């Protein structure tokens, strides 16, 4: 990957604009859960008859 190294990585300007960080993405970390807890929860909500759900899920093409 020589080309990759040749390309100079421009630096971020976040130093200049830290204060301007709009309220985007600032509530993310509070929602972080351990994968295991997550998988427990997912086991609880997963469709009980997964095979049939998938089989019946047929869409018409769109756009």
């Amino acid at each position, binding site marked *: *990957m020589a*080309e*990759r190294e040749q*390309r*100079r*990585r*421009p*630096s*971020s*300007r*976040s130093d*200049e*604009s830290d204060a*301007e*960080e*709009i*309220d*985007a*993405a*600032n*509530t*993310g*970390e509070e*929602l*972080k*859960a351990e*994968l*295991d807890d*997550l*998988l427990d*929860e*997912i086991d609880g*909500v*997963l*469709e009980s008859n*997964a*095979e049939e*759900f*998938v*089989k*019946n*899920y*047929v*869409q*018409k*093409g*769109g*756009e």
Partner: protein
Amino acid sequence: MAVHKVLGIETEFGILHRNDGESNPVAASSMIINAYVNGFLERRIGWDFEDEHPGVDARGFNEFDALAPEIETHLVNAVLTNGARYYVDHAHPELSTPECTDAKQCTIYDRAAEEILIRSMEKANELLPDGEELVIHKNNSDGKGNSYGCHENYLVDRAVPFGRIVQQIMPFFISRQIFCGAGKIGSEAPGLTHAEVPFQITQRADFFEEEVGLETTLKRPIVNTRDEPHADSKKYRRLHVIVGDANMSEVQTYLKLGTTAIVLAMIDDDMAPNDCAFETPVKTLREVSYDIDLEMSHRLLNGQRASALDVLWAYYAAAQLWSDRYGFEVVGGDDIGNDILRQWHDVLSALESDPDSLTDSIDWIAKRRLYKGFQERHDLEWSDPRMAALDLQYHDLRPDKGLARRIGLARVSTDEQVNNAIGSPPPTTRAYFRGRCLERYPDAIVAANWDSMVFDVGSDPLRRVPMLEPLRGTEVHVASLLDECEDAAELLRRLGT
């Protein structure tokens, strides 16, 4: 100087009618939209298909006899007080956000669209017999070779040669997949098995067969040439982008819209990279989507090789130069522009050094972690139907079933902003005029579309108010006028139509 990147998103949602015997997706989609219109809106306002001819500026007193029968021939169509269009397209419920002036605003309206679909689904399900259920997914594929779109649109300068747009946007579209992809188990491209492509970055790459073209339903092109500006066609194009996924992650929607708006502004100003064209764009589109370890490099037309990351860094560097010269006014101002550049930099750095650090912001990376964990826990192959079910359920909009909303994805919007955007238009585009008129004079509006509205104020002929400038009719322009006018007749008098 580039034109302002007015932008929007159109999403076709997946729909399933459970336990209905002979399921009819057109009827199911109509039920969804009718449930919303009848349940939450004061009055149904139809869509005006005169919009198909935006060059015809019917300013003033116009007979309007062709409208009624034309509406009859189309499926359910409604205009909402937030300025959005909500309708049945093919066999899907589709919602087009109102015109927005920056990526963050549009991300809020995209999330509001989800909430509108959730409310519609819940309302419709109250009306269905016991045991039946309508289920909506925000995804782009059924896993069986059928795809439906999430399209973006951006206002571009008509004076820019279309060939330049094609040449300079295509490498970006191909490369941006690595931070825009919603992820998918398996491949729907002919001849590929789960063993070859167990998991890929995007939902859509499998379905693209051409570089440039007009089609959207078959032989889909990477750059779509539909030329419906829904605005003054002498001044503007509206780039209709079909090569994207519907994201559950707000951060991705924001980054997708924000970076693409900047790249299109760079193209308007002729400052986009010129040396990144891939030698085989359609093949490369898929290779990038299948390369989940981000290891591949691809041959460029100039004989060099570059990875998707290399290309994105080149566009990022050009964006820095462009913004030094022109500022961020045309993408929504310095706060938004600097934030997009910062997040663009950060997401590329993370993809390069530690992709797993993006599990809270990139759908395909969040999915990969989840799916691998699930696989190990239950000892499943990628091809197991339970894995496919998981991959559908990630996009399920039912609050008690959907996975994406319970895994801690970072937000761009707040609940308050989303709630407001469900009923109120963006203040900064003509959608403001459309939405406020619908809210204030619902009985006097016959139909509306992107670039005009048709009023019926009683004895006079129907009147069309043209709105060919996306940045006119904003809160600043018309709020006090609308507040002052008691009825539509007064409004039209004062508008001088």
